[in-house]
C-alpha cells in the first residue's frame, strides 16, 4: 500500500455512535470543513479576555499539555513566556503546523476542517502572553481553507495581530522549536543548542511561545467553555481529547479524535484478522518514528495516556498509532524508517552524524538475509553512543524506536539470520517521503 501523501486524510471521532456522545466528542473536528460563518455560528467570536495573563489560570486548571509530541504543560510555557516578555518588552507566538512527522496527518486535517479554531487559539495565546507578533508555520503552502479563514477574519476584524505565514521545509527536524525560530528568522530550519530556551530568547531574541496547532485549538475551546468542560473527558491526570493518525492493515490512514485513556484496541483493533481474510497485526507502533514498538501480547490493557504507555517505555507523542500487518517484514519497515531518520539528521553534531547512518546500515543488514554476528552488538553500542549527545532529541528518539524494534522483532531477526523471512507482502507499510536532503536549500 502506498499512502497518497498529498491527498487529504479522512477523519472521524472515535468511538462511533452512542459511545461517542457519551464521551463528549467530537470537540475539534467537525464532520465537514467549517468556514468562518459556520465557526461563528457554532462557537461565537474569539473570546478575548481583555488583558494579558488572564487565560493562564484556566489553562493550568484544565491540565492542557502540548499536542506536538512533548506533552509539556501549556500553562507553564505561557507563564514563562509572559514573564520573560514582561522583562523584555516583546514576545512572539508561533502556531506550529509543520507536522514534520511523515506519518502524522492530524494538524494538516485540523487546519483544513477547523482552521478558525487554530487561529482563535493563536490570537488568544498572543493576548495572554502580551505578544506583538504572531506566526503560522506550515508544512506545505497554505491551503485554500486557511487563506480563506484569514481573509474572512481580516474582514471581520477578529484578529488583533496580523498572521505571518511561513512554509517549513519538508524536513523531519523542521518542527523542532529552535529550528522553527531559525527558519522564521530567515535561516535554515536547523536546531541550535539550548540554553537559552526559546521561551527566554527565540525569534529576534524575543521570548517565543511555540505551540502545536492542535494545542491552540484546544486552548480556543477552553477559553470558551472553561477548564472543567475540558476535564470532562480523558483521565484525571491527563484530561481532554487528542487527535491521532491511525494506520491499520488494509485500511487508509485515518485521523481520529479520541478521548485520552481510550484503550488502544479500540483504535487499532485487537490484532486478529478482519474476518474477511485480511491480515491481522503483528506489532503496534505508538508515537511515530521517535516512538516505541509494542508487542501485541502486552498490548491488551494499554490505554491512550502516558501513564499507561510509560509502563511499556512508550509515550503518545503526536498521536501516530500504527498496527503493522502480520504479512509484512517488521525489520524491513524499521530499516526503511531509520534510513530516513538518519538521512534527516542535521549533520551538525558529531555523534548523531556518525552514529545514525551506521545504525541505519546495521538495521539494513539485519533486514537482509544473514548478518554478521558483530552487527547486533554494534547497534547496541552505537545506540548508547548517540543517545543524549546531540543538540536536539533526534538521536534519542531514533534510539528509542530502534531499541524497541530490536526487542519486538527479535524472533524475526533470528529468522533472517537463518536466511528466512516470515513476510509475504513486500510492499512498504509505513509512509516515508522520497529523497534525502543534499543541499542547503533543502533546509529552507
Amino acid at each position, binding site marked *: 500500500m502506498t499512502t497518497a501523501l498529498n491527498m487529504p486524510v479522512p477523519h472521524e471521532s472515535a468511538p462511533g455512535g452512542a459511545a461517542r456522545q457519551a464521551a463528549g466528542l467530537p470537540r475539534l473536528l467537525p464532520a465537514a470543513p467549517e468556514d468562518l460563518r459556520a465557526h461563528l455560528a457554532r462557537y461565537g467570536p474569539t473570546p478575548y479576555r481583555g488583558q494579558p495573563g488572564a487565560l493562564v489560570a484556566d489553562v493550568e486548571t484544565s491540565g492542557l499539555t502540548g499536542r506536538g509530541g512533548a506533552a509539556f504543560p501549556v500553562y507553564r510555557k505561557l507563564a514563562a513566556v509572559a514573564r520573560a516578555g514582561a522583562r523584555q518588552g516583546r514576545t512572539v507566538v508561533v502556531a506550529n503546523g509543520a507536522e514534520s512527522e511523515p506519518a502524522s496527518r492530524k494538524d494538516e486535517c485540523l487546519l483544513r476542517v477547523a482552521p478558525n479554531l487554530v487561529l482563535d487559539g493563536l490570537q488568544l495565546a498572543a493576548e495572554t502572553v502580551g505578544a506583538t507578533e504572531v506566526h503560522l508555520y506550515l508544512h506545505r503552502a497554505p491551503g485554500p481553507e486557511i487563506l480563506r479563514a484569514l481573509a474572512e477574519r481580516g474582514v471581520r476584524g477578529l484578529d488583533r495581530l496580523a498572521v505571518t505565514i511561513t512554509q517549513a521545509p519538508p524536513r523531519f527536524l523542521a518542527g523542532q522549536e529552535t529550528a522553527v525560530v531559525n527558519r522564521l528568522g530567515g535561516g535554515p530550519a536547523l536546531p*541550535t*543548542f539550548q540554553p537559552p530556551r526559546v521561551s527566554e530568547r527565540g525569534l529576534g531574541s524575543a521570548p517565543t511561545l511555540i505551540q502545536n496547532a492542535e494545542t491552540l485549538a484546544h486552548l480556543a475551546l477552553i477559553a470558551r467553555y472553561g477548564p472543567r468542560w475540558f476535564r470532562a473527558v480523558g483521565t484525571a491526570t491527563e484530561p481532554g481529547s487528542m487527535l491521532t493518525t491511525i494506520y491499520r492493515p488494509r485500511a487508509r490512514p485515518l485521523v481520529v479524535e479520541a478521548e485520552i485513556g481510550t484503550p488502544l484496541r479500540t483504535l487499532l483493533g485487537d490484532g486478529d484478522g478482519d474476518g474477511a481474510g485480511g491480515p491481522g497485526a503483528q506489532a503496534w507502533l505508538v508515537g511515530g518514528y521517535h516512538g516505541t514498538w509494542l508487542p501485541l501480547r502486552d498490548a491488551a490493557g494499554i490505554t491512550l495516556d502516558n501513564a499507561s504507555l510509560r509502563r511499556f517505555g512508550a509515550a503518545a507523542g503526536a498521536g501516530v498509532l500504527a498496527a503493522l500487518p502480520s504479512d509484512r517484514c517488521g525489520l524491513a519497515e524499521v530499516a526503511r524508517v531509520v534510513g530516513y531518520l538518519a538521512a534527516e539528521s542535521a549533520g*551538525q*553534531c*558529531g*555523534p*548523531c552524524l*556518525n*552514529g545514525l547512518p551506521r545504525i541505519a546500515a546495521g538495521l539494513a543488514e539485519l533486514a537482509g538475509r544473514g548478518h554478521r554476528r558483530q552487527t547486533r552488538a554494534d547497534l547496541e553500542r552505537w545506540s548508547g*553512543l548517540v543517545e543524549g*549527545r*546531540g*543538540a536536539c532529541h533526534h538521536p534519542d528518539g531514533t534510539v528509542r524506536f530502534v531499541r524497541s524494534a530490536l526487542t519486538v522483532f527479535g524472533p524475526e531477526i533470528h529468522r533472517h539470520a537463518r536466511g528466512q523471512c516470515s513476510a509475504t507482502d513486500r510492499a512498504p507499510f509505513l509512509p516515508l517521503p522520497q529523497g534525502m536532503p543534499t543541499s542547503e536549500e533543502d533546509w529552507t
Partner: protein
Amino acid sequence: MAETLRVNPITCAGHGVCAELLPELVTLDEWGYPIVDPGPVPPALDRGARRAVAGCPALALKLLRS
C-alpha cells in the same frame, strides 16, 4: 554551588583537548567526540575543569552553574 560541564555538540569539532586535560570527567567516543560526565564537578577537579574549558579551541566546553 555545584557546577557541571556541558559540551555544545554543534560547535564541538572533536579536537579532543578536553579529554587530555580532564580525563577524569571526559572521554572520547570512537569518533573522537567527548563524552562528558553529567554530574557535578568535584571541587578537587575545579581547576582542571576551568583549564579544559579554556583549552577548547572551539570554545565548545562550558562550565555551568546548576
